[in-house]
Each structure stands twice: as C-alpha cells, then as structure tokens.
C-alpha cells in the first residue's frame, strides 16, 4: 500500500526527468518548448498529489451537507497560478522561436549556433 501511495511521486520524478532529458538533448526549439511543458506538468502533478486527502472531495462547500472531508485547496491554488505561468512562458518562448526562424531560417539550436559563430 505504501508503494501504491507513493506511485504518484514516482511518476512525477519520471516525468520530470523525461522533460529534463529532452530539454538537454533535443536541438529543435519547438521540441524544447514541449519538453518544458512536460517538465512543468510533472511539478503540477506533484503538488496536486500533495493536496489529495483520502476520502476527500473537491473543496467546494455544498449547502446543507456537513461532515465532508475536503482535499487541501492550497496546492491547487498554487498550481492554478503555476499553470498560468507555464502557458505564459510557452507563449513567449514560441514568439521567440518564430522570430528566430525569421532571422536564421532554422529552429535547430546547433545550426543557429553555427551561424552565430560564422558571424
């Protein structure tokens, strides 16, 4: 049971390193942005896992019902913010990629580096 209870955390760890691996090794900039999204999603999973309480329900008070167990609202709030931060980063990153493609004609970072060196 302990193992099953920690399974979420392991998936978090694995997703995190999959994203990190792709970030390090991939040269395609769009791919890097996707990898960044996986990387960040892993952290979302981590926080939301933390918020779950056994037998709990979403923290919305229903009129007339008492004695409910609510899952922890705080990590959820944090992740709402983090998701927004993530999409903002993605948008900005993509805009930079588009501009890079217009300037260099490629979105592979090793080719961009080679062009920079030549200059």
């Amino acid at each position, binding site marked *: 049971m302990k193992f099953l209870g920690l399974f979420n955390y392991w998936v978090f760890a694995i997703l995190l390193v999959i994203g990190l691996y792709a970030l390090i090794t991939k040269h395609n*900039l769009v791919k890097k942005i996707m990898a*960044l999204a996986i990387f*960040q999603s892993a952290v979302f999973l981590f926080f939301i896992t933390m918020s779950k309480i056994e037998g709990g329900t979403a923290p919305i008070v229903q009129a007339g019902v008492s004695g409910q167990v609510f899952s922890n609202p705080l*990590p959820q709030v944090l992740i709402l913010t983090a998701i927004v931060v993530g999409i903002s980063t993605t948008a*900005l990153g993509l805009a930079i990629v588009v*501009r*890079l493609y217009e300037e260099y004609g490629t979105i592979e970072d090793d080719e961009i580096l080679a062009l920079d060196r030549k200059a």
Partner: protein
Amino acid sequence: MLADHLPALQVALPLLTAPLVILLRTGFLAWLVALLASLCSLGLAMLLTATVLETGTQHYAVGGWLPPMGIGLTVDGLSALVLLLITGASSLALAGGRLSLRKDIDNRRAPMFYGAWLISMAGLCGIAVAGDAFNVFVFMEISALATYVLIAGGRDRRALSAVFKYLIIGTIGATFYLIGVGFLYMMTGTLNFADIALRLDEVTETRPIVIAAGFITIGLALKAAIFPLHVWLPRAYTYAPNAATVFIAACSTKVVIYVLLRFNFEVFHGNLPGHTDLFGVFIIPLALAGIVLASAIAIFQTNLKTMLAFSSVAQIGYIALAAGLTSEAGLMAALLHMFNHALAKGTLFLCVVAFVLTSGSASMDSLRGIGKRMPWTMAAFLVAGLSLVGVPGTAGFISKWYLVVAVIGWDGWGAALVAAIVISSLMAVVYLWRFVELAYYSEPPGGEVVPMEVSRPLRCLIWFAALANIYFGLFPQLPLALARSGTETLLGGLF
C-alpha cells in the same frame, strides 16, 4: 498613513504603472512615465530603508490576512539593500539610456518595452519584499518573463538566441525552485519563510528536506549564474540593449542570490543538521572555479560587453564564496559585495552605453582610442574599473577587504582562498587594462582623433555614478549598516 503601506506600494507602484505605459502612444512618453515611476520607486525604497534602519524589520499582511494564512511581506535591512539596488539601477539605466534605447527600440514598440521594464523592476522588488516562498516564485517569473522581453529588444539577432537559452534555463531554475518549495510545503504545511523555519524543527524525517534544499539551491544557482551554471549570462548581457544591460547586470542576479541566502540561512541553517557544511562544500569549489576561470576567460574577449559579462560571473563567484563561508564576516562580505559590485558594474555598463552611442559598437576594435575621443566617459570607466578591481578608496575595496578578512578567519584553506582572490583580482587588472591601453594609447579607427563626447546630461549622470563608487568607498556607512542588519537577520536562527 501611507508610511504603513510602503512594502506593498514598493511593488504596486511600478507594477500598476506598467499597464498605463503600454497604452501610451509614443516612445518618449513611455520612457518619461517609466523613468518617473522608477524614480518614485527609488524614493519609496529610500523611505523604506530609513524606516527599517530606524524601527527595525517591517511586516505587512497583504489583504489583511495574517501570515501564514495570507501572504506576508517582510522588509529588513537585507531587503532594503536589494531594493535600493533595484530601483537605483533602474533609474540610472533609464535616465542614462534614453538616446541609446531610442536607437535600439523603434518608437512603435517602445511602450511595450518600457512596460516590460517596469514589470521587471516591480517583479524584482516583489522578490525583495516577499516573505512567502511561493510568492517569491510568482514574482521571480514576472521579472524573468519581463527580463526576457528586455533582452530580446537587442538589435543583433543573436539577442534572440541568447534570450531563448536564458528562457529555457531560467524556467528550469524556477521550476526546480518550485519543486523545492513543494517538498517544504509537504513536510511543513506552510509557505511563509519564518513559519517554515519554525516548523522544520518538528520534522523528524529529513530526506525530503535535503532534497528540497538541493533543488532550491541548484535552481537558484542556475538563475544566479553561479559557475558553471552561468552559460546563459554572457550572451544575454552582450546582446541585450545597452541600457537594459545596465539594469540587468546591476541587479537581476543579485536578487536571486538574495533569495538563495534567505533560504539557506533563514530556513535551512540551524534547522537542517549538516546543512551549513554541505552548503559550503557545494558552493565554495564552484565559486572558486568561477572566480578564477571566468576572470581568465574575460581576458580573451574581443567585445567589451562580453568581457564585462564574464567579469560578472567572476564577481558572482566572490559573492557565492563569501556566502559559502557561512560566517558572520563572510555574509557581511557577500552582502556588501552585492551592493558594491552592482554599483561598479552599473557604472561600467553605463559607460558602455555612452561608448556605443558614439562609436556604434561595443567591439574592442571599434573602441580604439576612445579615451582620446571621450575623455570624460573613459575616466569614469576607469574609476568604476578600479572599484571592480578593489583598489582602496573605491567601494569595491570595502567588500574585498571584508571578503579577505572573512576568508583568513576560515579554518583550513584560508591561504589558498586568499591566493585565489588575489589571482583573480590581478586578472581583473589585466582584462581592464587591456581595454584601458586600447582606449588611451591606440589610434582611433580612421586615424583622426575627433572629440565626440556624449551629451552633457549623460556625462554628468555617468560621473554621478562613478563618484558614488568613490563615495561609498570612503563613507560606506549606509551599505555597512544594511549589510550588518541583513547579516543579523540571516544568522538570527543561529545565535
């Protein structure tokens, strides 16, 4: 009445001015409003500093909810020091960078640029006043995104590839930080710094805490460009618009180091057995490598901005080294060096703004003989350069002095560390002097010496900054008081 709300206003003022700025129609107006907002922030920071020095640490509960339920703001000497840096650097860069920015940023896009500038500044201020670990993350991301925009404003296309790299590394760093905060929340159930520190004592299982310390330290080290995690910095500094470099180089990495110190000393130090040693063992070798190698790399640069950027990596190494000693003297040295290095680097980059304004490029070749063409600016560059080296009478000397005193007191390897500091100081002399010789004793491109000094207001501003380097070298009472109060808060948990 407003005096009670200074911590919140410090962030709210520039933050809320930004949306107004992007609605403006011309670059000049946007610049003017941004400058005014920046100056007002500087004023607020001064008021706040005075208040902190007079009455001690300021606490503020946003929304009227007391921490740890709500988000608390905490302003102590250390925050005040960082606030002064941020707002001062921003005002200086905006005031001195008008013409330069007008060249770099076309009028149509300028309001967006200045809006991003204000948001970046507000984000940094937000970090400096935050008392909440997640709030730090939010404002770190605000300032980071805005800073990416600032850097992407560079005219060279390499600014784009530089900023993309920065974006990826910055995001990894911030996410690592967030993971660390998550582990801390998991084990303590709170996000408030002071509260985390309080409740860490009760945690019997420390494995997740150690992992949290690791993630936070590495994540922040990435953003602070501590060697060898600095790869994003030199290109970002080099290709950013010159005036933006003044601002970014003076304070953005410092603010991250500020968070690093906050966390490692206020939260972990004293609560996590062996953390202090581990922190030193981790950070000191990296700092040393950074100090020596980055200085060496700086010697071989052909672009003035890149040279100064590598010098920044080395100087960050000094700060990290001093902090890694985890002693009172070491922390004093670290905090002072944050202030003094910002002062020197800000002045140097401001001179670069002036150089590029008249000669069009920051490559060493095009700056030959600049000392004859722009004697005033070059002299100011020299003064700030001496401060960077740590010549007595300049601000840089004060922090180097503290650093060496702290290092000598460190048992075991004191002499070796002193040697490293000395060697890198000498390398600083070498890379600076390479440029000084070039500026004074080689023929300008085209052969003729045409006086082409920048406008008088800019010259005055540059000299104002240069003289500040001397003033704080002779009368360092203000940064000393702030650093001392900051050291006390940081080590508060220990004594």
